[in-house]
């Protein structure tokens, strides 16, 4: 019997230091290839025996067939451990979990605006690369990404080398405070959103710290966006990943099963407990 709580084995085949506290780990099945297929925005439970298990969003696009990637910020026992491991380390993985972004549903054929803050880019990167892969299925793509400083921009190299080079993709970067060697925009994401004055069309995918999401939503509404247009992805403490252990619910919805992606109009009907 396949049991949801029993993980499978993966192996870390590459580690990239993105920022001082974010590393991106490439995980493959033991025999090569991916441990399982997934959709953009879905998550996986990673664990190291005796250290812990936690849910991470899969940052690589499903269109990548060779591996999965996870961008992980150092913030606790397990992530500390992951940050200290070397290539070749075996790791436990199970999933995919959650609904993912409706890339083949509501988002299809739409202009897309991605707004990310800090490590919040991780779940969006999967969608962005998926949309880039199936470029013809989507309208304009705009990406606004901000972080504390230049050094805290995750996937900076990929943004510069690939996203910014793509035609029909506009990338806006911002950092919280001015710093040497940065001649781009300086300021918080929500105010930059207003500054840029996006056309309230299409769909918006927002991910970042709760406070950023809150104010970004306000900015978007000022610009004329409705809650139905905006999607985000949630993060709560999870143990099982399959809607049984009872802790990741917001009202009657389980983030691990019914989420983590929610449309803001759905979310606003749920209790404000996240």
């Amino acid at each position, binding site marked *: 019997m396949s049991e949801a709580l029993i993980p499978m084995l993966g192996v870390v085949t590459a580690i990239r230091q993105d920022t001082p506290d974010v590393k991106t780990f490439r995980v493959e099945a033991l025999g090569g290839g991916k441990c399982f297929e997934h959709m953009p925005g879905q998550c996986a439970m990673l664990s190291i025996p005796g250290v812990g298990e936690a849910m991470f969003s899969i940052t690589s696009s499903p269109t990548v067939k060779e591996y999965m990637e996870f961008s992980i910020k150092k913030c606790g026992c397990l992530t500390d*451990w992951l940050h*200290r*491991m*070397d290539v070749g*380390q075996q790791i436990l993985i199970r999933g995919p979990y959650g609904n993912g972004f409706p890339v083949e549903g509501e988002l299809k054929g739409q202009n897309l605006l991605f707004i990310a803050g800090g490590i919040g880019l991780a779940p969006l990167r999967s969608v962005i690369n998926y949309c880039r892969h199936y470029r013809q299925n989507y309208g304009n793509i705009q990406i606004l990404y901000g972080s504390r400083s230049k050094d805290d921009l995750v996937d900076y190299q990929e943004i510069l080398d690939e996203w910014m080079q793509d035609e029909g993709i506009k990338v806006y970067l911002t950092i919280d405070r001015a710093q040497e060697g940065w001649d781009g925009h300086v300021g918080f994401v929500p105010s930059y959103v207003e500054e840029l004055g996006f056309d309230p069309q299409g769909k918006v995918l927002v991910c970042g710290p709760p406070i950023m999401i809150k104010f970004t939503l306000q900015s978007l509404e000022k610009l004329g966006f409705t809650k139905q247009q905006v999607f985000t992805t949630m993060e709560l403490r999870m143990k099982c990943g399959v809607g049984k252990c009872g802790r990741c619910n917001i009202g009657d919805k389980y983030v691990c099963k019914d989420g983590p992606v929610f449309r803001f109009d759905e979310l606003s009907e749920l209790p404000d407990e996240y």
Partner: protein
Amino acid sequence: MQRIGVFVCWCGSNIAGPVDVERVAEAMKSVPGVVHSTTYQYMCSEVGQSRIMEAIKEHQLTGVVVCSCSPRMHENTFRKTAQRAGLNPYMVEIANIREQCSWIHKDKEVGTQKAIVLAKAAVAKVMLNTPLQAGTSPVIKRALVIGGGIAGIQTALDIADAGYEVDIVEKSPTIGGRMAQLDKTFPTLDCSACILTPKMVDAAQNEKIDIISYAQVEKVSGFVGNFTVTIRKKARFVDELKCTGCGACMEKCPSKKGKNEFNMGLNNRTAIYIPFAQAIPNVAVIDPEQCLKLKTGKCGLCERVCSAGAINYKQEDEVFERQYGAIVAATGFKPIDLDAFDEYGYSQSKDVVTSLEFERIMNAAGPTGGQLVRPSDGKHPHEIVFIQCVGSRDTSGCGKPYCSKICCMYTAKHAMLVRDKYPDVNVHVFYIDVRTPGKNFDEFYRRAVEQYGVDYIKGMVGKVFPEGDKLIVQGSDLINGKQLALQADMVVLAAAIEPDPSARKLATMLTASMDTNDFFTEAHPKLRPVESPTAGVFLSGVCQGPKDIPETVAQAGAAASKVIGLLAKDHLVTNPCVAQSNELLCNGCSQCERVCPYGAISYVEKEIRGPGVREVRRVAQVNPAVCQGCGACTVTCPSGAMDLQGFSNLQIMAEVDAICK
């Protein structure tokens, strides 16, 4: 993941003999976290250390385990090695596979298995080590010497000589100690007072030295470089600054029943007295037990005769605090009580005396003015029996298990002096062994036997008892194989010496350890003989173990040089293995504060922020310069907020796990 290197030392054949070091190194390779494991003949050698340094660099080690001798031996060595290779020195752990393994287990299989377990425990611990930074604390440039005998005086003089201030606290009214009581010194037979008193005067006149006589240390707090000492200066009822030492008071004092301590109670002194002529300070002191004025309020003669107006019956004990960077214990010795040795008749006859009493009898400034007479009747003795090892080398439990070291020589000295001055007196010495390991010592003893005809009898004395006005000494002559019953006029007992009783209390205050005989323990018996294990506390003289005057003086100088070395520093590097309070877990209950022996814990109200927490709480804080890292607080803390760096809860539990696996 940590990257641990394991280095197994052969210690020549010390470890490699009973332990298969290669197997230990091999076994460690499969332990998770270990990336490098090797052996070497002598890890502590230059080559060994450089191997460790190379491995640290080559394998990017984050932690090092050295399987070698006791960490008490080389932990610091290897910490420095790691530091030189760029690793934090506190990322080193030692597995003690010599003292606690190879030296006690003969079976190679058993020893090897144990060594592997010990190494695994050390790895488990080092995996949880965190880099620690040593702090610094300032050094107070003043030393305290406790005890004003020859040891204390010499130490103080040497420290002062180097330009540092030093206080001598002496419990009796004068400095000088036991040496001041001696008549002559062996093996040169020069006059003890003649060589000591100039030093006493030097000390008194040295402006860097403050002699606090008739005083005791009451409390010691603080730590190396920064001790705070509470001193109680007892009331002497005489103003030290005014008294000129003229002695007029002593002449008039009507109370003359005080036992003369300086003369070992062989005669009496007045209630107001100066211990001896060359006393320093040369100031009178009133014995409140004897003084009529203080006891009954009636008298006051001394006050009237004192032209300096120095007498002050209302004087009270003075208690004050001083700060020191270093403390030297020089508390000296006393002869043991002879109550347990009644077979020698000490309590039955006044003519059975101890060697120190005999010393006073022979002294020109002593109770008999230097005339050899019997204490009982003042008659000149003709037969004197000396008995050695009274209470020394005694494993029966009545005496001391150790050799008092000086008795053989002073007994030879006494015998020789008697025979020299009074050729009519026959001298017999009962001995077990005669021990004369010292420069010119054996020659001295041989002179006593050969030149002065002292009758040395190898054998034990069974009993001494008075018969008429004689003393009968029953003993055995082992060489001639017969029982003896000598008639003697006097018997002199070479009583064992023991540490001064004040030392025990002092050791507790200093947190310095003592051995079972109450001698202070050295930090290392061979390599650090003048330091106590407590940093900043040094040892001088007999308080550390029996020794004669030249040895005492040598050790006093050595202690002084250690003190000088310490005081020469402006700052000391502090031990970073101290307690730390996790404010997120702290209840602010104050339990830890109550057990801290150093007062290192204080409380503050502060805003605490953490996951789901943001409020003002009362939390404990540890002063790392004051904390000594005992860990008492860590166990008192129920929430585990208090933990000890270098010996954390998780580290110790990891060791437990590894050992019990």
